[in-house]
């Protein structure tokens, strides 16, 4: 076929204006966007995320954040960003360099975590900033009279973003647990006695997610009824060198950048979508390697990961003397 093509890696982009910057707690700030062209945003599914592009002194950072705004209000998209002081710098950039009126670029919504339409009831478990995807899911379910409940764990009342708002609006559906006061979510009891056809969803730190998954599995929940936001931010690590065979280039991945970012820095168009290790889009063939892979994705199955023939450059790293990729 011979129609005009726009070949570009990654999801479609939308130019936006930062319409509000709202501090929520000491560490969390909400950013609201409107479209630069004044139109409405595309509809989205509760739990979807967008990838925010940040122009930071000559380098482009692309960080995914859950859309937390009401899916019924498409005049605005909102995200909440937690400042990670020893992260790779994206959240710091948002907190220190972005202000109201700035022009930025975000992507179309990407949905890897969403409300399962087959469920009779939805039970949500949020840990810390993991609350954000549930805010838009709740918005969506409220419009369709969905049956849901939320269990939200935070350290202290001061750090529990949006807890007051949730408790006020939905006093019978929301429970908040403060670990600072020794309060833990009783996963086991909560999962017991749920009506047939209930689905459960979890988003939070890895241990929190695992705990819910393990408990639900032990209690006999089918895997198809357990949903988790398996989203990994790229982590810093030792620098390493990679040879990109097709482009005939050797590059070094810095401590604070991901392999995917290093490839993009060299202006090589590598595929991606979620940038969080779960969509599978960035899967790359390893031509040869001598060393150890640090697979941090949720995509490769065990045999693929162990085979050392595939890597997900958005989140995974490598330690060793030689790595050659089919890029």
């Amino acid at each position: 076929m011979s129609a005009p093509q726009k070949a570009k890696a990654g999801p479609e982009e939308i130019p936006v204006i930062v319409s509000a910057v709202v501090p929520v707690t000491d560490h969390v700030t909400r950013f609201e966007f409107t479209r630069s062209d004044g139109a409405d945003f595309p509809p989205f599914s509760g739990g979807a995320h967008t990838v925010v592009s940040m122009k930071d002194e000559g380098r482009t950072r692309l960080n995914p954040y859950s859309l937390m705004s009401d899916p019924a209000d498409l005049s605005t998209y909102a995200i909440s960003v937690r400042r990670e002081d020893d992260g790779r710098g994206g959240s710091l950039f948002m907190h220190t360099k972005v202000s109201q009126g700035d022009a930025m670029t975000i992507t179309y919504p990407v949905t890897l975590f969403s409300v399962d339409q087959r469920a009779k009831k939805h039970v949500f478990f949020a840990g810390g900033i993991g609350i954000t995807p549930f805010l838009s899911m709740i918005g969506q379910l409220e419009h369709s009279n969905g049956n849901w409940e939320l269990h939200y764990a935070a350290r202290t009342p001061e750090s529990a973003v949006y807890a007051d708002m949730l408790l006020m609006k939905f006093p019978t559906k929301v429970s908040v647990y403060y670990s600072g006061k020794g309060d833990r979510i009783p996963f086991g009891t909560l999962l017991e006695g749920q009506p047939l056809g209930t689905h459960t969803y979890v988003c939070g730190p890895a241990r929190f997610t695992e705990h819910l998954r393990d408990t639900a599995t032990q209690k006999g929940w089918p895997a198809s009824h357990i949903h988790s936001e398996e989203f990994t931010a790229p982590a810093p690590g030792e620098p390493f060198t990679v040879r990109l065979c097709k482009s005939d280039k050797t590059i070094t991945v810095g401590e604070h950048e991901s392999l995917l970012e290093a490839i993009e820095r060299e202006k090589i168009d590598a595929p991606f979508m979620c940038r969080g290790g779960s969509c599978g889009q960035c899967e790359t063939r390893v031509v040869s390697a001598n060393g150890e892979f640090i697979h941090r994705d949720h995509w490769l199955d065990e045999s693929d990961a162990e085979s050392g023939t595939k890597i997900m450059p958005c989140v995974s790293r490598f330690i060793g003397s030689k790595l050659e990729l089919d890029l």
Partner: protein
Amino acid sequence: MTIQFNDETFRDDYSFRNSDWAIKRFPFPFHEDSYMYSVNMEQHRGGPEGSVYEKRFDVDEHYVSEMRDRAKVLDDDPLRCQSLPHMTLAGWDLLELIMVSKSEDYPDLFELHRDGDTWRWVNKPLGIDDTFTFLDETTLPYGPMEYITRQSQGDFAVLDQRENNLWMDAGMITTQADWSLDFDIGMNFFEWHAPVPMAHEMGIFKRALKFLLNIPQGAPARRLNWTMTVNPLLDTSPENYHKWGIQKTTLTPENIGAKQHLRVELQTFYRLPRSNALAFPIRCYLCSFQDLMTMPKWGRRLHRVIKDLPDELATYKGFIDNRPMMLDYLAQFDDGLPTSPGIFPEPETEPPLKTG
């Protein structure tokens, strides 16, 4: 341009006709003088002006008659349209996608007026002017998917996405090339593809599935598929094989040019925003051999492609028995001159064919 809608049938007396305009824009599927099965996906992002690739949902001169044919098929067999209970939201997504696209792409034919959740939809060719509440099924005469696909050419499969797989959980299938929604409903990607020969290597299917799972919102994709149909029959369903299969035996050297049709599917893939389901519209275009011969490049090329096609593919596509007769017919036109690359007919530059 304003479209003159044909008054025609796809059954009984087969009064279906392509105008010169429709022939010229027919999506001829062979970009070179041979054919190999491939997934051949590309982005669905417009195309040359007037081509079937230009608009998101192409509307052509057969629109009104095709919709009449669909209504007849549904009267006889309501199970051609099914939607499992959890697919209603996806149905609304599809309705919105089609209404927004058509009203923007064909403002003289379709209008959409939105005031919050109160929507007014005007479909001039079909004489429809309905006001309803978005996301409230009780305000439409049918479910949202059925409502909008009774007004849209082509079949529609709506695939739920979960557990890293796609599920055939809803669809409007009345013009299909020999597959059955009632049989496939609720199946996953591997289950409903089970009987494809030649491409049965798991690798191809896994790659195709992965591509589809990753189709992002805002970036639809498309591909062409093709087969052969005797008579311009839209409904070549397995349910009705006893009616149409027999027509394959009615070809003669005298009537083959008029009766034998190349049947091309323009398949598109859209990520639906609220439900995260995948919409899979399958639009069918038919063109008789004699009409194809009016485009010299296609005349030369069709002969070469059909001649060199592996037997397994000709069998799979259901025309192995008629192939010798097809080749006798097509050979008269092929003078052996080279053809230019690409699918578009280029009648201005391509030298005329021998007249059969």
